[in-house]
């Protein structure tokens, strides 16, 4: 049986878990160890198997292969009602024939908690999601954000060992989503619960989690802290998925070490950071995030020693806090640089048409072998 010591977070471990729906493989060999009290997000494009993975942990799907452990117990054959799990569904799945309080009380009633104790715990859970006084309403009489909070209260009131959330914020507008992210995080910390959070929003994954697990095509492609995922993506797919990048194609000129150089198709030699398995002569894509690119007026001093390429600003997109400058660089191509608007953008020296220098630190430019199926499948 699952550890049911209330308030004691437990770990979750998946070992080579696989699941197909008929001939359609949804999850192909996922191995993942989640520490007690950790909040992990599953990130990936639509159809990559996030929901299926979550449903396997919940016991709503039986895996074709592999092992699932909650705490130390192997739970492969344990039905969902014996797993002591909390889950927030994407559609919330609040029972329409029950009031808010009855919805929250449901899990307690199933555990034999009744009477004044039950009422107290329901009130405490509703207070925790700031819905005190909403107990008598029907789910249909609530806003989207309120329903989401009821679903959260219903999931945590039984003090489950693991909390599963399947894109619970997808239906909310941006502002509400951001405040709910903070709220979920705070409640998760306060309750000290292990949580798995499914999302296909990279920003949400980065803000909300201790660890991000990026999935593609039923497999885990990378798992790491938000910073590792963002700064050191292991594959081109991960890099693309967690944010916009400049992509420059070329061939490795100098390699064998972590830092090397690439001769771009456009002509120039640029410094890059290389994956260990990339050798000189390999065709690569060099990926540089816009905020890693510096821009300076041609007559100003170069911020970092080393590589600087002359170019011309062709186009600027003002975003308030920052500006994206599109720079045509000879021998490189078009490079987008993100510049925080430290000084008023109106007084800037970086006007469209002006001559500038651009550059980046070698470790900020990541070279990935082009169209490499092996790199995509690595896990």
């Amino acid at each position, binding site marked *: 049986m699952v550890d049911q010591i209330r308030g004691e977070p437990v770990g979750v471990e998946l070992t080579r878990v696989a699941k197909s729906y008929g001939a359609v493989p949804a999850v192909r060999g996922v191995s993942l160890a989640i520490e007690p009290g950790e909040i992990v997000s599953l990130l990936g494009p639509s159809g990559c198997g996030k929901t299926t993975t979550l449903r396997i942990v*919940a016991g709503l799907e039986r895996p074709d292969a592999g092992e699932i452990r909650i705490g130390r117990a192997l739970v492969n054959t344990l*039905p969902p009602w014996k797993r002591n799990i909390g889950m927030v*569904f994407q559609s919330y*799945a609040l029972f*329409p024939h029950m009031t808010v309080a009855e919805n929250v009380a*449901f899990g307690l009633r199933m555990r034999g908690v009744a009477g004044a104790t039950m009422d107290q715990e329901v009130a405490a859970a509703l207070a925790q999601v700031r819905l005190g006084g909403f107990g008598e309403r029907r789910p249909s009489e609530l806003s989207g954000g309120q329903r989401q909070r009821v679903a959260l209260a219903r999931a945590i009131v039984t003090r489950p060992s693991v909390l599963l959330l399947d894109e619970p914020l997808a239906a909310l507008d941006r502002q509400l989503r951001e405040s709910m992210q903070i709220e979920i995080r705070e409640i998760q910390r306060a309750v000290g619960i292990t949580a798995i959070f499914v999302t296909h929003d990279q920003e949400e994954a980065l803000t909300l989690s201790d660890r991000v697990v990026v999935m593609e095509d039923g497999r885990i492609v990378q798992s790491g802290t938000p910073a590792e995922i963002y700064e050191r993506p292991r594959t081109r797919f991960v890099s693309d998925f967690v944010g916009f990048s400049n992509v420059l194609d070329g061939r490795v000129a100098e390699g064998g070490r972590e830092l090397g150089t690439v001769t771009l198709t456009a002509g120039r030699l640029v410094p890059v950071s290389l994956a260990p398995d990339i050798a000189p002569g390999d065709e690569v894509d060099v990926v540089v995030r816009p905020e890693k690119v510096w821009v300076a007026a041609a007559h100003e001093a170069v911020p970092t020693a080393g590589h600087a390429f002359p170019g011309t600003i062709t186009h600027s997109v003002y975003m308030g806090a920052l500006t994206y400058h599109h720079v045509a660089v000879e021998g490189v191509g078009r490079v987008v640089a993100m510049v925080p608007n430290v000084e008023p953008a109106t007084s800037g020296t970086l006007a469209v048409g002006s001559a500038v220098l651009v550059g980046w630190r070698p470790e900020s430019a990541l070279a990935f072998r082009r169209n490499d199926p092996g790199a995509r499948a690595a896990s």
Partner: protein
Amino acid sequence: MSTAVSGSTDAVPMASQRRVRDVSRLMPLALLAPGIVVIGLGLVWPIAAMLAVSLQDKFPDATRVTLEHYGTVLSDPYFLRIIGRTFALATVVTVIAALVGYPVAWYLARSNSRWKHLVFLGVIAPLMVSIIVRMIGWTIILGNEGLINAVLRALGAIDEPLRLMQGFWSVVLGLVHILLPFMILSIAAVLGKIDRSYAEAANILGANPVRTFLSVTLPLSVQGIASGSVIVFCISVGVFVTPIMLGRGQVAVLAITIQEQMVVLVDWPTGAAAAMVLTAGTLVVLGLYGMFIRRHARR
């Protein structure tokens, strides 16, 4: 509609604006008219006529208005027994149809089996065969010389044929068979619309399949049971052919008695009063259903 029109009033002259509004108000009436005519001619008119007859001392050649026929129908033990039997029959048929129909409806709504279409066809097939044909079918099975008795006799289990054909329960069986499709389709329609995540949420909250069914799925499908029950009850309370054929004259119900009063005994006012009692009973059930639906609609 009318707010959208008045939202841009400036250019539109008042008169034509009013005309637009009148037309939009008459439109629903025009669409409802055919239905109203059919219901009026087919339902209200006969009931009104029946009510009028039931209140006359004699028919034809009435001399005064009286409630005496209602007194007869509602106090004479003969009539009371028949009224009781009629409503008991309808209730029993409804309950059995719900109990038998629910699992079939569940299968139709939830199964992914490729036999599902066949089962669906089996469910609606009885609707395509005339009642008389189906009753003859049951006679072939249940009759003294019928299938069951023949088999039992061949097996040596009985010497005399069992009298399967004249009781209350053979009529119940026949009615459940006829009316089951209505129950199944009503329940399946509602079950099919219930999102599966409700049951899954209940499972995860600790409810085993039985508790999930009792506290989530059943309450969410109760509207289907209610509408199916109303159809089955209202039809079986007024049945005529089935009790005659499967009851062999031993199972007198109101519809048969009404027909006897009017056609055999030529006592129109008493027959009409009995018919009004039948109608009133049906209306009470419909009223309860309406109240139930209104309470449910608040969700």
